[in-house]
């Protein structure tokens, strides 16, 4: 019985000869075995055939100039693209019925959006907070004013005034909560304050019947805000309170003055372009962007609510998610378009209804994706957060959600891509999106011919592919950057 013991080190071997990176790649990845070699050849020939067919159709056999179907009669014989058709219909496909002399507004929104979005998407960009506020807070308002039209400044004033009023009301609520701990005399004053607020609200609503409803509400809120500020004492110290008061009063006066001033002096206004005239790729992008941006916060709130320990909140979240997920999107759109007007006297604008429907629908799906991420976070993370003395919002915001969302990026992007393609369903509400516009263009007898259908679908296919591929490439980049898969 002998045991073998290695008594001296094995000499270091030379690397294999001819091992250039290309050669190794070919030998190990491509031609490792006969089966693999055959597979490679088959795949290569298939890819070449398809690419050649595409090049043949879109470039070699294609017609590039012309003004009607006669120009494309040639490609009808040999299957090529009829690009003059796309050129002729391009305005319709990109902007729908949006008036040609106002299309610069859409282009400007695109440009501003891109300028804000591109640095925001860069993983190591600076000023991210500022950019986020600009893109998610100010840009939608800017886009609304420019795309829809109407008075240029009023929406900003309204939004600003509403924001300030809600801030002031939050101050008031905090103040009232703190006042419980105060002496009796101050409690009485707090009670008086509540009464005064209600009076202010009523007066505000009644006093300004000359204004529109939204203005009247704003006015009432402003009065309420003034009353609240007059009594607001934050626990942080006297000087700060005076600063806050002064700021809010100045802002309220500024907003009121401006509103009144602009109502008296004619303010600059853009031509209103009703959403029924929006269309093409433009409307596809509006619906997709709104849905994508809105679905994430909706999804986070719903996911957290569904995992909440409060039974009412949890039940409501489960009910909402299951009902919305259990109904096809087209049903929601159809209902909001044709049924809602039967119940409401003044239903909101058709596109707004679509945007709300799409956001809620995408939000419900997003909630389940994010919940998956939340469930993957080990219990230790929660316990660690608790041991540091973090509350619920801090635990979620600082510890759990960042990890959870990082985990579910592939699922989230999957949902975004699905949503982008689902936007074609807006055709049920009589809006021609990119695909709807293309289908309408097919019916033009001035262009009808055998090659039109192929050309049109090839073109829309390329656009959809471009956008979806960009999204998935970006998600890969982000995953790489965040190293979510814990690769060593």
């Amino acid at each position, binding site marked *: 019985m002998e045991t073998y013991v290695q008594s001296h080190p094995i000499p270091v071997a030379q690397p294999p000869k001819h091992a250039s990176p290309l050669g190794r790649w070919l030998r190990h990845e491509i031609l490792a075995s006969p089966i693999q070699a055959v597979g490679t050849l088959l795949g290569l020939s298939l890819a070449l055939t398809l690419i050649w067919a595409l090049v043949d159709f879109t470039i070699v056999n294609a017609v590039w100039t012309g003004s009607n179907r006669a120009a494309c009669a040639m490609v009808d014989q040999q299957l090529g693209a009829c690009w003059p058709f796309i050129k002729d219909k391009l305005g319709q496909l990109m902007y729908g019925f*949006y008036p040609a002399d106002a299309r610069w507004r859409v282009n400007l929104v695109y440009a501003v959006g891109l300028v804000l979005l591109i640095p925001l998407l860069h993983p190591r960009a600076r000023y991210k907070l500022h950019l986020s506020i600009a893109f998610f807070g100010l840009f939608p308002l800017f886009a609304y004013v420019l795309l829809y039209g109407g008075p240029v400044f009023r929406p900003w004033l309204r939004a600003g005034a509403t924001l300030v009023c809600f801030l002031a009301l939050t101050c008031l609520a905090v103040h009232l909560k703190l006042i419980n701990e105060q002496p009796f005399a101050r409690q009485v004053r707090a009670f008086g304050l509540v009464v005064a607020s209600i009076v202010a609200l009523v007066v505000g609503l009644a006093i300004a019947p000359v204004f529109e409803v939204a203005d009247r509400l704003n006015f009432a809120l402003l009065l309420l805000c003034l009353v609240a500020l007059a009594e607001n004492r934050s626990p942080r110290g006297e000087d700060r309170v005076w600063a806050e008061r002064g700021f809010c009063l100045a802002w309220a006066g500024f907003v009121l003055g401006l509103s009144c001033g602009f109502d008296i002096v004619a303010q600059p206004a853009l031509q209103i372009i009703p959403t029924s005239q929006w269309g093409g790729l433009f409307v596809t992008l509006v619906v997709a962007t709104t849905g994508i941006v809105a679905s994430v916060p909706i999804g986070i709130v719903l996911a957290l609510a569904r995992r909440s320990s409060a039974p009412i909140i949890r039940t409501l979240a489960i009910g909402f998610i299951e009902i919305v997920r259990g109904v096809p999107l087209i049903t929601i759109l159809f209902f909001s378009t044709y049924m809602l007007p039967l119940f409401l006297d003044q239903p909101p604008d058709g596109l707004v209804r679509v945007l709300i429907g799409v956001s809620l629908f995408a939000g419900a799906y997003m909630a389940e994706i994010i919940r998956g991420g939340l469930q993957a976070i080990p219990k230790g993370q929660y316990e660690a957060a608790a041991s540091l003395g973090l509350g619920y919002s801090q635990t979620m915001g600082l510890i759990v959600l960042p990890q959870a969302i990082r985990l579910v990026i592939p699922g989230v992007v999957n949902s975004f891509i699905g949503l982008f393609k689902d936007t074609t369903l807006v055709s049920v509400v009589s809006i021609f999106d990119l695909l709807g516009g293309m289908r309408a263009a097919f019916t033009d007898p001035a262009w*009808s011919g055998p090659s039109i259908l192929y050309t049109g679908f090839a073109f829309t296919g390329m656009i959809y592919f471009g956008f979806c591929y960009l999204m998935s490439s970006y998600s890969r980049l982000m995953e790489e950057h965040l190293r979510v898969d814990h690769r060593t």
Partner: protein
Amino acid sequence: MFSQRIKNLMGCVFAAVTVMTSSAAIAGPTLQKIKDRGELACGVSQGIGGFSMPDSSGKWTGLDVDLCRAIASAIFDDPNKVQFVALSAKDRFTALQSGAVDLLSRNTTWTMSRESALGMSFSVVNFYDGQGFMANKSLGVSSLKDLSGATVCLTSGTTHEMNLADYFRTHKLKYEAIVFVTADETIKAFEANRCDVYSADTSAVYAQKSKLKQPDEYVVLPELISKEPLGPAVRQGDAEWGNIVKWTHFAMINAEELGVNRANVVEMRKSENPEIRRLLGLEGNLGESLGLSKDWADRIVRHVGNYGEIFEANVGSQSPLGIKRGVNSLWSNGGLQYAPPIR
């Protein structure tokens, strides 16, 4: 206990249905609603060449579209005060019932069930369509009667198969049908000589013909074997509005009959012909009794044209479709387009 709950449920459903139907019915005089809104909401198709489709500059064109423009002209003296709402074939009736559109001018066949069960009201036919046939010229056929033993390409899911079977059985002719799922497949098969004739509604036959590689080598046979009267529909319960739609069409027919067209309508105001004078509102007060102005028909012809003009421009000889007037000729020319007199 359980049946009680079902009864309650049924009660709820009935209440909901009542609310829905009643709110549709009490929508009030449509004309007033349109005037308040400042434009006519007209339900059109999502693209049917020659009937309603947006052109390359985004302007709606077509025979059905021109009817909407004519009505807008009669009400507002402006053919552009129309909001076109593009509807799919599935959604069109719901859209009309819910009040989303005032009028459906969307290539819709007037049938009994649509009036008796769907609450629509049709009153005029602006295009007499019907199932027709197209054959290769080399076949040398000039009439359906020559088609015994032919193979026919058609699209499934329509009434065409049934019409075809009925027609060939009653005329004791033999045929063989080859059925396809989509219209584009059907026409491709016909082009590839899978069958001798192609069959669909005439308007569609002409539209498909323009998609062929050599359209001139094919001929559309003169016979129609089914009735597909296409016309505008309104909700039941507002006869005043129905009258406006109906008489807009009749005004265009009468204008053609009297030789009043877009080019000469101003000239025609000097005419001595009492019929023309009544049409143009120079005598009598007929427009105002409709709830419109005296010169309502003058506006229609001035802005849109007479029936012959809109037919030729959209689907007839001046359009790529090139549909012959045929049954859509005036009654005085042997067609079916006939309008009661304006007096």
